[in-house]
């Protein structure tokens, strides 16, 4: 496990000072999802698109008998789509399962990385120069040695603006 931060001795931050994340990549950017919110990581091979759904919701997935609402992180964060979005038979989607209010969601990401334990001390509030689309969805960042990890506010991601009922 990598960890950065000035801690003495053991080389790993003390338990209370650490934050654990499941890291994912979306559009080249490293994101961190608080581990407490992550239920699952899985590959979906089939997805049912929902006509007239908000753009970010790319469909419904059957996960062990539960219907999961899939939200495309690329679209959520304002990226262009990847070339192929699988429909019923082809392609694979990498998904991180999240629960909220008893409902099952899945965040579709480009890829899933490792679980990182980071020190609180490296946590910073969202920098001003960060893309506005991300700023709304982020809780803060961790400055790693070579890159920035954007900590995602899961509830903000799930808070998709719905059209007002006609």
């Amino acid at each position, binding site marked *: 496990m990598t960890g950065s931060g000035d801690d003495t001795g053991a080389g790993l931050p003390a338990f209370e000072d650490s934050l654990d994340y499941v890291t994912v990549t979306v559009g080249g950017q490293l994101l961190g999802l608080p581990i407490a919110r992550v239920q699952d990581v899985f590959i979906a091979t089939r997805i*049912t698109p929902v006509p007239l*759904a908000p753009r970010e919701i790319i469909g419904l997935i*059957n996960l062990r008998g539960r219907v999961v609402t899939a939200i495309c992180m690329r679209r959520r964060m304002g990226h262009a789509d990847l070339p192929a979005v699988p429909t019923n038979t082809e392609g694979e989607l990498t998904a991180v399962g999240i629960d909220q209010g008893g409902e099952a969601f899945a965040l579709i990401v480009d890829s899933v990385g490792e679980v990182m334990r980071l020190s609180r001390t490296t946590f910073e509030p969202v920098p001003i120069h960060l893309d506005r689309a991300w700023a709304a969805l982020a809780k803060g960042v961790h400055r790693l040695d070579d890159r920035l990890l954007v900590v995602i506010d899961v509830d903000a991601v799930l808070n998709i603006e*719905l059209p007002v009922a006609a």
Partner: protein
Amino acid sequence: MDELLQEFLGETGEHLDMVDRELVRFEQEPNNGNILRNIFRLVHTVKGTCGFIGLPRLEALTHAAESVIGQFRDGASVSSSAVTAILETIDRIKEIMAELAEKGQEPPGHDGQLIDELRGLAERAKQELAVRQPPPGLDPVAAYLARNAEARSTETGAPAAASAALDEMDLVFRAAPSPLDQPGQAHGEAGRDAKVAGPATLRVNVDTLEHLMTMVSELVLTRNQLLEIARRQEDAGLKGPLQRLSLITAELQDGVMKTRMQPIGNAWSKLPRIVRDLSTDLGKKIELVMEGEDTELDRQILELIKDPLIHMVRNCADHAIEEPHERTARGKSEIGTIRVSAYHEGGSVTIAISDDGRGMDTARIRRKAVQRGLISEAEAERLSEAQILRFIFHPGFSTSDTVTAVSGRGVGMDVVKVNVDAIGGMIDIASIAGTGTTITIKIPLTLAIVSALIVASEGQRFAIPQVVVRELVRVKADGEHMIERINNAPVLRLRERLLPIVALAGVMGRASDTALDDGFIVVTQVGERQFGILVESVFHTEEIVVKPMSTRLRHIPLFSGNTILGDGAVVLIVDPNGVARLVGVAAAQDEAIADASAEAARPLERTTMLVFRTGKDGVKAVPLSLVTRLEEVDAGQFESGSGRALLNYRGRLMPVVPVEGVELRQAGLQPLVIFSEGDFSMALAVDAIVDIVEEVLDIEMLAMPEQGLLGSAIIRGRATEILDLAHYLPKANPNWLHLRREDGGGPRVLLVEPSEFLREMLAPVLKAAGRQVVHAADLTMAAGLASGSSELSAVVIDLDRDAEAAFALVTRLRVESRHASLRIIGLASLPTPEMHVLAAQSELDAVVAKFDRRELIAELAETRPKLRRAA
């Protein structure tokens, strides 16, 4: 929360609801000692439990209430204010219990005022009893104990002791004959009047049942999966156990569903109290009648309709029922009645709330609707009463001038409709001014597992609930059923009905390359509307477990949920209500077309006409309702025979007759207007179909039909000649008008129809059915002809101009014995249920829609059943 407390709250809640109901009953039957004893016992039990658990505030309240009730039980006179006070106490207790549920302890507070009031009532009652002769057999010791026990408890404030003493007193009291009983009547019932005898019941946590239900649903899904696999395999050994599994699952499903079923009476339990309170508050006399309270519904649905039902009953009491003096002034009984009823029908439950109040003021609703800009004045005029009444379901629509605390805020009925819609139900309203109103709700029996038709569109599968599917029709570009376009809207002609068509792909925003021609039409019925959903393919029907839509997707009106099919695919469930709403335009058009043909008979003679071109500039028209089909055929297909052009059409040879001024094409596409009657068809060749127009026609009739024309009219600003079909039909088939000709020229039918135009249109129809037609332009003429010597076999009479007079004539005719077996058929533009009822009363044989030729001929063909000779 403390388990004991939870149980207490649950049980006590139930007891208090029962007390509520019983008190209201008691008010209506003050001499019923049983009810009073029940009430006393219930309150006593609650008080005991409160003392046991240690809830002083509740205990004090129940104790005070119990004292008053005790006095009533002993024969003190019951006043309405006393009952009100007790009911208030019950309410206060419920309030405290609610807080108890939330916080785990009794809220701090004082109920001094209420308790004082109750004590006062109890005292007065006691004194009243003391003045009367003490009833024979009452044990003076018991009486002494009673008085002292009460005094002791209020002084010492020791609940336990008081309870014990009162328990004893209670036993003693029960053992003693009460003034209400006949002496000597077995009072040992006291011990036996425990819970009302019924089937053994068990208290089960709702969550447990939910879990069970979920498991059964999963079982159903897994079974579906296995069935799917078995379908593809040939393993014989698998089939046997699988069948058994299927049977068991189905039974288990049924059984668990039953546990979810609750009698609708549960939702109605609060109503007697509410109506009673409202009667008192509003100064009206209202009686509540409940029918079918045993009708069972899914628990989930019950929860959803409970509040809407209460709201509607309040509305009734507040707005519909008049005050007593107003009622008597109208010749009604002083007491207004609100009737709630429920019964099973098909796969649904029908609930009706009706009252005998003042009915709805449609004129006012019409005005309000126009005022709010919901429709224009012109449109408002055209809408029928039923359609106007439906405006009350519009958001914010409240026609009451004063907003009362009870209702009338204008947010009610639309919320009710939304709730009913949400569970896939239907709501409608019927009202007669001055007499009363009835609101009818139809809801599915259960929401959890439904039968659904699996269809596909644009490569994706969807599920359509079986309950709304009426039939399936295969459509092909040149097949037996094809999609036509009228005013640019796709429609399907299905058995004389025009069905608006909506393509599922289109509604989902998927522009399709393929033309709207091929596929299957799922004929869907939502409420009174029928329309067709065009899909690419239809698979099979499957039992699906309905899973609710994600909260982020619930706003899409098209879908009501989703499910997982046997093969693991997630499939969206189409909400027919949603589709119907999105198809609003098409539906309105459908109504417009239906209305148009219906309005043809109105004094303004509005008709839907098919307009076509003949020759270079000639424009002619014929009523659309007489047309069977429009076609465009390759002229090369025409054959020649006996000097006429013929077309091989659907396996038969059909004559093709050009309209005057039209030359049959030799090559290219020839537009044809097809008329069919039973086995006979003919095609009128025209130069081009111009349009379908709905117009107020003012036809200038020619004195004598000539050249195949009846007259002319201004259609869309152009002089248009009206075709005389009777001229062309025999050209196609000389026998057309002489079918089934019997000696004497066929049976005579008296056609009573004030509109000359319509007589001209209907006469060929009757003639084609082999009848001789005798015309009568008005009822006097009709009466004269009917009493004439020549024998009539049937009478076809118009009901639009003056229904009452028509019915009166029919009744007169029936009186004459020779007309007893006369077949009398009424014609109406828009036959309503009321009309059918009135028609039956006047002994008409049938009421047929004016342009429904098939129906008219079918009815003519039938004979009147032989009537019993009246003694």
